């Protein structure tokens, strides 16, 4: 049986490869950057790459939420924290510490485990059409206040506690 020639990559595959390479490269940058601020910037790039992957999967809502929450709030907070610590800001820090070996081992193990999962699980690929975007957001909102109301409320409470805690810490006396 002659081995069939691989078909030409589609535009989607090419775009996916580009985005995936970009995401992986910037993820490596997060780990390997000697300057912590560069690491934070690379993290922003990584999160953008993941958002782009979401767009490719036609999950625009998720993509925009990703940019809004991770780039807008969390990365800004990280960058802010780095900027406020002077020694980290200008000095070159080593990306490795004493536990580098163990961490590397665990990273490899986790990668293998995840790879095995991805390979072995038969992913349910339903042919049913995905909900149109608008009704998807509405359905999501409805799920939040019906099926997942406890998780949603607990999350809100957690954020409130964090807010109050931050105010308490920042008070003068």
């Amino acid at each position, binding site marked *: 049986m002659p081995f069939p020639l691989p078909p030409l990559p589609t535009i989607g595959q090419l775009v996916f490869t580009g985005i995936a390479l970009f995401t992986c490269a910037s993820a490596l940058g997060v780990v390997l950057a000697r300057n912590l601020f*560069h690491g934070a910037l690379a993290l922003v790039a990584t999160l953008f790459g993941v958002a782009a992957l979401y767009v490719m999967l036609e999950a625009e809502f998720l993509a925009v939420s990703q*940019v809004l929450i991770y780039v807008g709030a969390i990365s800004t907070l990280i960058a802010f924290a780095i900027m406020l610590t002077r020694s980290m800001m200008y000095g070159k820090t080593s990306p490795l510490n004493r536990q580098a070996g163990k961490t590397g081992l665990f990273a490899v193990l986790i990668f293998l485990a995840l790879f095995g999962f991805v390979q072995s699980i038969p992913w349910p690929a339903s042919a049913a059409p995905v909900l149109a975007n608008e009704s998807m957001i509405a359905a999501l909102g409805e799920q939040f206040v019906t099926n997942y109301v406890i998780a949603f409320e607990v999350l809100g409470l957690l954020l409130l506690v964090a807010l109050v805690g931050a105010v308490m810490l920042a008070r003068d006396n």
Partner: protein
Amino acid sequence: MQGSTWSDGIVGLLTGLGLPEMLALGIAYGIGAFILVNFGMISALLLIWITRKAISRMQDRLGPNRLGPYGLFQTVADAAKLISKEIITPSQSDFLAYNLAPVLSVFGALMLLAVVPFAPGLIGVDLNIGVLFVVALGSIGVMAALMAGWGSNNKYALLAGFRVVAQLLSYEIPMVLSILTVVLLTGTMSFGRIVEAQSLTIGGLNLGIGWFGVMMPAAMLIFFISSLAEAELTPFDLLEAESELIAGFHIEYSGMKFAMFFLAQFVNAWILSALMAILFLGGWQGPGVGLPVIGPILGFGYFFVKAYAVYVLQQWVRGTFPRVRIDQMMYFAWKVLVPAIVGLIVAQAIAQKLPFPDPVIYAIIFVANIAAIWLVATMLQRYIKGESLRTKRSFEPTSLIGTMQEAKEYAMY
């Protein structure tokens, strides 16, 4: 995603020539993006001219009046000057952050143009999540300012970077919440449909004056104030306060790199005024937009008239008000605007669930808005009174010998 009508013509033409549809769509969107980006760049020239003219008039000057009719080409000359200037890079600056920041800041501003509905059917992409898209892109501007402030290796730039984060993130909350009132009412986050919802059909004729700003004046006002802060305009221009920070986070930038920040700022200010026109002043809605041929052209005109009118209003405020202090700025965002708009949203959500006919609900929302304006005005009056009293006391001679007392009953924070 709904099909936007503007690209259909180009796609039809190209597929007629024998191109595959995917490629034709790509070319059509490429042309659209090219036009939009260049529109942004060129309109910035006009915006700078409008700003200079408007502020000059308010300060009893003439403004640019030498180059071209009414000095229209002054900005072109300025741009040519900026291009020909030497680009100076600080020696200890961070290469990546320093050079990426101006690009990102222009990127964030121009990307916003993609979701602006210019006329019926004329919108780059009518995203279902247009509102979220705009909010998310706002964070790129914050990131760019942070990178510029840190990458310049200059303490003034860094301080301005801190202020940028504090201000833009604080004012993003009232702005987003004021957009939420519109989303709550229309039940959609697509700008195209928000504009369409603002029609007012009487007797089968679309008058196009069902503007949300009429029904929700408080939300509109809060959006306008936060857009001033987001665009870094004068009452909130602490980010580039010349007397404190020299120039702000772009102090170390020269030539075209500085011009890019400048461009992003003006395009941002215009887009925020356009957003106010879209959300609260009906966008392209106006009398006669329902007509077959002339309607879209009229709509195009209405939209630009509204957007530029709000832009001039911004410049008017900029030319009139003094700069606020940083504590006043934070106080105003967190203790005045956020509670007011959260209260409004709660009131509106309850009103919309009441078992009344629509006009009654709209009337309730209107009353709630008026109440919010009254409340905020009263609070501000008390604050200003207390502030002026404290200023007066601190300038009295007796206050200098340690007898000054705190104006506790007036201090509100």
